[in-house]
């Protein structure tokens, strides 16, 4: 066997081990969700049951936390998508000497541990609300949205920057030359171009918010979200109901991922078809031109 064949075989083995590491723990947790045993385990398998799911559905704290998490995720999308877009647009036109300073500031939340973002937000708003009397801001939901948005906006900004790098400025100029106002250019040229990025930024923002624990655990104060309820439960002890929750999350995820994949494939197929038609038309024109030229 040649060295390359050995390498290939070793690589295959490694990939299998790697994905076993990635999925093994989750699969085992999944199985425990259906085992009758009150302790999450797979051996012995005492019988198939769906009881843990009904335990889950009857858990009031968990349901409350889920609703709160969904609501916070929605608010974070509303806050961090516009901010990220603005941040990216400002990045492309900020005063040159301030650019690296600006970059340092807006990227710093990505490189700051989440707990510290939560702490600093709570500390600042406690002080600020005491000074100004704006008591309604010092609330778990508001603070969590503010704290999460500070770094999630940086994520969305990076997504928008990547998209903006491919933006053709001449489109803007063409629209302006044709008499469009600045606001119209923004509304009818830039925003449609950014639309796919806005979609993916919203998805990323929602997911990052929904699964966040580090920042939330500080910023939520006495309130609770799904993640903080979960963490509390796990400190009390392990129950298969938690496995059931994980299974539910994964089921939703898998459906979502498959839908996303289908939409993406269909879009790609459509783009390909469009490109093929365009090429055909172009070739037809060329042949027609060539025919015209020979005829002449």
């Amino acid at each position: 066997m040649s060295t390359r064949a050995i390498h290939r075989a070793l690589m295959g083995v490694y990939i299998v081990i790697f994905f076993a590491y990635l999925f093994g723990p989750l699969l085992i947790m999944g199985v425990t969700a259906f085992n009758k045993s009150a302790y999450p385990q797979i051996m012995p398998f005492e019988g198939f049951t769906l009881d843990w799911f009904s335990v889950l559905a009857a858990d009031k704290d968990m349901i409350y936390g889920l609703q709160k998490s969904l609501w916070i995720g929605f608010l974070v999308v509303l806050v961090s998508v516009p901010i990220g877009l603005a941040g990216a647009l400002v990045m492309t036109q900020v005063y040159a000497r301030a650019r690296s300073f600006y970059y340092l500031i807006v990227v710093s939340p990505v490189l700051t541990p989440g707990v510290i973002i939560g702490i600093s937000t709570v500390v600042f708003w406690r002080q600020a609300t005491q000074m100004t009397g704006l008591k309604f801001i010092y609330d778990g939901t508001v603070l969590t949205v503010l704290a999460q948005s500070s770094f999630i906006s940086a994520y969305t900004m990076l997504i928008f920057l990547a998209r903006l790098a491919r933006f053709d400025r001449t489109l803007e100029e063409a629209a302006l030359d044709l008499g469009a106002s600045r606001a119209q250019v923004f509304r009818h040229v830039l925003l449609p171009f950014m639309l796919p990025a806005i979609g993916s930024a919203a998805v990323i923002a929602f997911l990052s918010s929904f699964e966040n624990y580090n920042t939330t655990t500080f910023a939520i104060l006495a309130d609770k979200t799904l993640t903080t309820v979960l963490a509390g439960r796990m400190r009390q002890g392990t129950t298969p109901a938690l496995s059931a929750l994980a299974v539910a999350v994964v089921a939703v995820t898998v459906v979502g991922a498959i839908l996303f994949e289908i939409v993406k494939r269909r879009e790609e197929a459509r783009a390909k078809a469009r490109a093929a038609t365009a090429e055909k038309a172009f070739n037809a024109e060329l042949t027609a031109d060539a025919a015209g030229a020979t005829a002449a």
Partner: protein
Amino acid sequence: MHSSVGQWIIYLLPPLVVAGFALLAILERRRLGPAAPAGFVDRNGWPVALFLIVAVGLWTVFMIVMPLMAMVDLSFRPKLAPPQWGGPKDFYTLENYRYFLFGSTTSTDAWNVTHLKAFGLTIWVSILITILDFAICYPIAFYMARVAGPARLRLMMLLLIAPYWVNEILRAFAFRILFTQQGVINKALLAMGAIDQPVDFIAADVALYSGLAYAYLLMMMFALYNAIETLDKNLIEAARDLGAPWWHIHTFIVIPHAKPGIGSGATLVFMLTAGSIAAPLILGGPKTLWFTPIVYDRFYQAFNWQQGAAYALILLAACVVFVLGVLKLFRLGLGEIAR
């Protein structure tokens, strides 16, 4: 120095910095005269310009800079009852940092062994986990970027992302199920006869370390993949044709090219590991003290926010030092890392 100074700095410094840059920009426009490019408002139209300024202003000033400054400010204040804040006793002090080092706000006789040890362990383990994640990810990232065909690549991407849709806490829980005394691994080892008594993996921190290494793998993977993906295939072919052994190709071609990716992956993994709080809570043994739960307890158990702020700042300082160290080691700029 009285603490009211801090208030002035927090509320005046950001507008001053913004005004300073605006002034510079205006002066430069004056100097350039008619040759200056179109101004900010001209370029965007006033509704959009207003939106940009308000959104970015709120974000940078109220959500990023001022909270951080407030935390720094608080960390230097003495613990006082709320009515005494800003009062005659509210002078800046180092007592919160002194407590971290010596376990007392006044005496410096004994070291605060518990907290110092937890801090040292957190930093040391985070560095090891970062290196481990690099070692685990590198072969896969190289395979995806250089060997796999498009269909397989897409499948692998999907498989990689899928586990990360599961909540961080539930992922830690999965490791708990694996590693407890009645857990799957112990059962399997007992059945095989490899051990005759269950091993306490949680107390031995095996569970914690494997859970942490698992938690942020994806960050390293995508940073490496993106970096290796841009490498010109011909370089590898050329090296191979010239007879370079495979490990030469990796050490002298692929890894130097992937430096920015390694840097950004390492920074993210380190920062996330050192700042993680879910995995240590769920997987940490009874004797293991991670640093973040200590910080949490300063706030919500000891209700000593001043001390908590100081502890948080110490953690942040460690992360900044690590980032600067990586930048220096790999000779990179910040722009190359945060992408």
